[in-house]
């Protein structure tokens, strides 16, 4: 009995994620686009949660829905989110044909058959611990330590660079801040 309800909840959450991501590209108002994207990320976090990866779900919400999307809304607020006017053009036609091709490929993929779990590489014990804080931490700080640190340096460089680009061409403000 529990299985049916669980599968139903997973299905509904996945459906909502798909609908929200459709909303991102189909909505004409930038604020609502951003909100749909937030909704999509929350649905993804819920899916992680349903698959017992609590840590990944929390991180998904903190990093993407919490921090990144706030900055999106910030920029929309500062630039003034104006509705864009939809009109038929060559680019639009191209985009639609690409989307159609991708959808066709997706349908082809569905004919392969139901998805099967990978045999051998992961047993039940490994599967139970996937997504817990401990496993993620051990992987990140042992096998992937160098790429992880390099990525953090790269992000720091990007952050410093964007401040330099944004701030210094104009005359620096004189402020009496301590």
């Amino acid at each position, binding site marked *: *009995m*529990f299985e*049916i*309800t669980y599968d*139903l909840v997973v299905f509904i959450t996945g459906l909502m994620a798909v609908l929200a991501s459709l909303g991102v590209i189909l909505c004409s108002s930038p*604020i609502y686009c951003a*909100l749909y994207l*937030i909704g999509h990320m*929350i649905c993804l*976090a819920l899916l992680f949660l349903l698959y017992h990866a*609590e*840590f990944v*779900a*929390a*991180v998904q*919400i*903190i990093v993407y*829905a*919490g*921090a990144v999307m*706030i900055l999106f*809304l*910030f920029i*929309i*607020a*500062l630039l003034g*989110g104006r509705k864009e006017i939809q009109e038929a053009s060559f680019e639009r036609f191209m985009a639609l044909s690409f989307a159609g091709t991708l959808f066709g490929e997706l349908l082809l993929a569905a004919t392969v058959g139901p998805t099967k779990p990978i045999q051998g590489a992961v047993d039940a014990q490994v599967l139970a611990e996937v997504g*817990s*804080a401990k496993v993620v931490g051990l992987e990140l700080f042992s096998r992937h330590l160098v790429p992880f640190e390099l990525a953090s340096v790269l992000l720091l460089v990007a952050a410093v660079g964007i401040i330099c680009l944004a701030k210094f061409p104009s005359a620096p403000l004189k*402020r009496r*801040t*301590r």
Partner: protein
Amino acid sequence: MSEFFDEVMEFIDPLFEPAFIIGSIKAMVIAGALLGVVPLLVWLERRLMGRFQVRLGPNRVGPLGLGQPFADSIKLLFKESIIQSSADKFLYHLAPAVVVFTAIVAFAVIPFGEPVTVLGQEIGLWGANINSGILFIFAISGMGIYGMVLAGLSSNNKYSLMGGLRSSAQMISYELALGLSALSVIVLTGSLNLIDLVESQATVPYIILQPLAFLLFFIAGVAETNRAPFDLPEAEQELVAGFHTEYTGMKFAMFFMGEYINMVTMSAMITLLFLGGWNAYGLPLWPILAFSLKVFFLLCVFIWLRSTFPRLRYDRLMTFGWKVLLPLCILNLLVTSVIKVL
């Protein structure tokens, strides 16, 4: 007909499992208690503020003025709801709901006592016991920022927009300090589970082992709940009322409900992380009473701070957050980790 009935029952059946019933009752009790505590907190704040400023505060309606919050609530409920014609109606209505919803949901993982046995069922005194409990609270309270940003964006008012932007910038900045200072406690415990955190403080609370982390967490917590002296998003002199300038009636009150519930959640967090949760340390108190007393004390400190300190200037607030609080947090974390490893 009976086949159809069976199929319906198959879907409804899990709803009658004890775990589901207990969960629903817990959810209702937590939500009800949090909403009920808000008027009392408003009363407490007004009475205490009165005392701090050498006056009486509201004492006319009912015994000790306890009728005042109810009179206020009734007034707010019956007030006309005015919506700006140029506002985005949907987002305008959504914003206060987001604030209250996230405030209540964040409280779901807070444990306030040891498990008790009722009718043969062991019931933990928490909404949910998840392994990444503390991250869950950070995640959900991070979502609460959207309520304020959306209120600012949808009102179509410059003051609201400024208030919304300020609140989001402030809360993102101080969330870092909040998380990093909590991290030094997590390093000591080795667990993200709030119940493990409390149980590891059975002999000594972390406020003694980590006084600096406690101070940093407390300051960041005050800023995170937008309380004075960090209530820049709603600074009256500069921004009229910040992100809720355009709101009236109950929707206006919902922002305050969110703020007060966040205050309770933050006090509970500080209690769990630094004051030893429900551990009474030898005093003859029930666990739940010990927890409540600690939370009550912290709430009084929040109010005390409001009536003591003047509001910071906005650039000073950001400078303080990024150039003082954050380096101190990182330093504290570094020292704690080194000591832990050694």
